[in-house]
């Protein structure tokens, strides 16, 4: 006998699956709205905080980076656009890692009182990530205009790449969700990990031709996941564009088991919210 709980037994027809997915997506959207309103209505600067969050660490980094020639042979304005776009895409990825556990923590009371599809947590987190991504893209557009950047024909490809970036981040992020109901260590540790991981990919510096950092950059899938869409948005094709798809496949391979783990482990975390 298996130790299990079977609810809503029976196979699900495709039409039901579509209906159910729609319902879960709407639930995620409503949960996002519920939290979003509370989050920004309690601040004076409102949505500006989302922009400040990415600008505040970026500006000094770009200023210092341009002084140290981290952009290689790029001009100061080209480097500023290069670094800002990279940091914005990094932030989209990192938001996708952080928000699922952040949203889940905010929803813990609901989770302990009502049974609803746990994927709604991911949809709500995606709402936050997409909202922030929208603001970030507006920031890139503004920076491109101010800094006189070019408008390559590959911009649509860069935009299409963003959902892939988000799913890749969520694949990592959903692993941490169940743990956030038990210990807060991941909640504290993940923001600290961001600056460390940021250095492992050539996001605001040009990758060196050799050495330890070069090796690290070459083997880090984030190099391609962020670097290639950045080129598509600001400079055009890189000649190494297929590497983006390869890195997407790598993250896709993480996503599937991560999702299975998420579905299996969330109920255990939820139980610990209400009972020892």
């Amino acid at each position, binding site marked *: 006998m298996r130790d299990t*709980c079977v609810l809503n037994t029976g196979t699900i027809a495709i039409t039901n699956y579509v209906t159910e997915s729609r319902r879960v997506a709407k639930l995620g959207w409503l949960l996002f709205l519920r939290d979003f309103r509370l989050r920004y209505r309690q601040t004076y600067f409102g949505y500006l905080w989302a922009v400040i969050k990415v600008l505040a660490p970026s500006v000094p980094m770009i200023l210092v980076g341009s002084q140290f020639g981290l952009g290689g042979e790029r001009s100061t304005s080209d480097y500023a656009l290069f670094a800002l776009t990279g940091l914005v895409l990094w932030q989209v990825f990192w938001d996708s890692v952080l928000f699922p556990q952040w949203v889940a923590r905010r929803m813990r009371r609901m989770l302990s*009182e009502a049974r609803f599809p746990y994927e709604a947590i991911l949809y709500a987190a995606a709402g936050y990530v997409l909202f922030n991504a929208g603001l970030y893209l507006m920031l890139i557009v503004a920076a491109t205009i101010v800094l006189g950047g070019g408008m390559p024909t590959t911009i649509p490809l860069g935009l299409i790449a963003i959902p892939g970036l988000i799913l890749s981040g969520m694949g990592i992020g959903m692993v941490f969700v169940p743990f956030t109901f038990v210990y807060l260590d991941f909640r504290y540790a993940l923001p600290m990990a961001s600056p460390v991981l940021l250095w492992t990919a050539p996001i605001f510096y040009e990758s060196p031709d050799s050495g330890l950092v070069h090796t690290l950059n070459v083997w880090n899938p984030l190099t391609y996941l962020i670097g290639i869409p950045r080129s598509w948005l600001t400079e055009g094709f890189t000649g190494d564009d297929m590497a983006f798809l390869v890195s997407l496949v790598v993250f896709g391979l993480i996503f599937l088991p991560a999702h299975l783990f998420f579905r299996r482990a969330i109920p255990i975390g939820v139980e610990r919210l209400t009972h020892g």
Partner: protein
Amino acid sequence: MISVKNVSKIFCRDFDRARSYGFMDIIRGGRRPGGRRPVPRPSEFFALQNLSLHLPTGESLVVFGTPGSGKTTLARLLCGLFRPDIGRIEISGRVQCPPDGKLGLNPYMTLREYIELLAAVLGVPVNRQQAYLTALVDQCDVAALIDTRMANFPRASLRPLTMNASLLADGDMFVFDDAYVAGSGAARVRCLERVAEVVSTRTTVILTATPKLPPFPIDHAMILHEGQALYYGYPTAILEVFDRLSGELNQARKEAEDSTASPPEPPQPPPTAISLTQHLSTKNRSARAAMTPFLADAEVQRLASSNRPVLVGPWMGNPHWELLYWRPYVSWLLEQLDHSQRRVVAISHAGADLWYGGLGAEYVDLLDLYDPEEFERISEERVRVTGMRKQRLMSDVERDILESVAQRLDLGIDDCDVIHPGTLFRMVDEVWRGRLPADFVLRYSRFAAVAPGPPVDLGLPPRYIAVRFNVETTYSGRAAAHDYVNELVHSLTASIPVVVLDTGYSVEGAQFALEPRDGLISLQGAASPRRSLELQTQVVAGATACIGTLGGTVPLAVLCGVASTCLYIEQPGFFAAHRMITNLMATTVGADGLDHVNMREVQAPVLAARLLRARRKPNGRPGRTHSGLATNG
């Protein structure tokens, strides 16, 4: 349909440990240490233990339980909020469990937004959400507040809002943990009407600590106590039992509080949480014993309330306990019912056909459904899954057996009433543990002699003694008993043939190995396992005398009217109870010549000599003694 099969749920009392265990369980992907039979780790306890229930589609169940009995845990398991640590829960359809009044509430939302959120959380399809919103505001009479921020929404209306939100949502099954109605005035009446409609049309479980039935018809009731199902049955009968139980527990708490309030006297230890727990535990035991008489009566009420076919069993244990306890209990139950118009099917094994012949019941032998090895395997599986050798609770295995039997008889399991040995065991447990007198069993037993059927030529000598010496698991002196019975058989075979009732069917219980010798006749291979008991009944009925152990052949010999000697070596409480009940059975059926002999007090050759002397007496039977010594003049 709800099917809860042998479900256990383990929680932890220690907050820090709970988080540590949770962390490890997440890493293990939900698998607890211990595999399929996890045991509580330090500071953990069973919040629910080995719970089984089956509720057909559209029927309702009320679960009574005092605070801390496991009701909320059960509710959360049924809602899918918790997963069982052991066992299986199957539920077909969407489950609604009316939530607390603040589910997902954000004071910045308007009522409209909040209802949209509730609709999404409660699973209302997207295309029905507008109609749902309209129906809910009408039901709760809050249409005027639809654009009000929830911060300004009347607090008293929150609970009725979420309760009605759940009641109006699409659900195949509803679980009400404690409250099933909310609001006041006309809104409360509307809510109650909706609940009554839900109960009459959907599968419903109501869990409550109040000893009061809801104001609408309920099909079944159950008492949950200390995480275990104390009893299933007919609601009004159960209510009386629960009322008594909660009264006892309240009294115990009051006594404990009183003792805490008064200053402790010097010889008494100061009242502590432990002493309170012990006190309650003692009271729980006495409450259990006090309510035991209701169990059988409640079972009669449950059975009398329908006219459906009755499946009796399946009996899967030792056939000799079947004769001592189960057959008399079934006989009593059927006597209470007018079952002449009902189909009654007894389910047992190894050829107990003759034993049920006089009860007006059809008989299905499990060895017609399974081969002996397969039956032995599923019997062991039952013991492994339930953790109990006795059939105290209906297991998954037994449910499958009942379904197979029902199919074989062209019946649906849900269209039958079942008399399961669980109720019997819950009653006799109290006797075995000394909380109720042995004659309590007599109230719920009807002993009747066993007719051996037409004489069959078995090729046995005209005079012989039948023996069967079961190895009881509780014997502490097995080696001594083994030597004793061999010495006894050795002494007897010098004068009279001895037939060993060893047909080789293992489920009847292991026997002491007897050394082969002249005059010792074995029944090995004389009958298939399917005919084992039939053969043994005929052999015992034709014997001059019978010697055995309890759990061996003694009850059969008594019911066949054959003089018998029951050997024992230990006297733990339940063995004493078995002996007393065997004596009462013998008295009731008018069988004399039942002796109980302590192997430590009477040497085997002496006993053999006495038995042989008694055999030579005109009536051929030894005199009866209660002292443990065969005194025969």
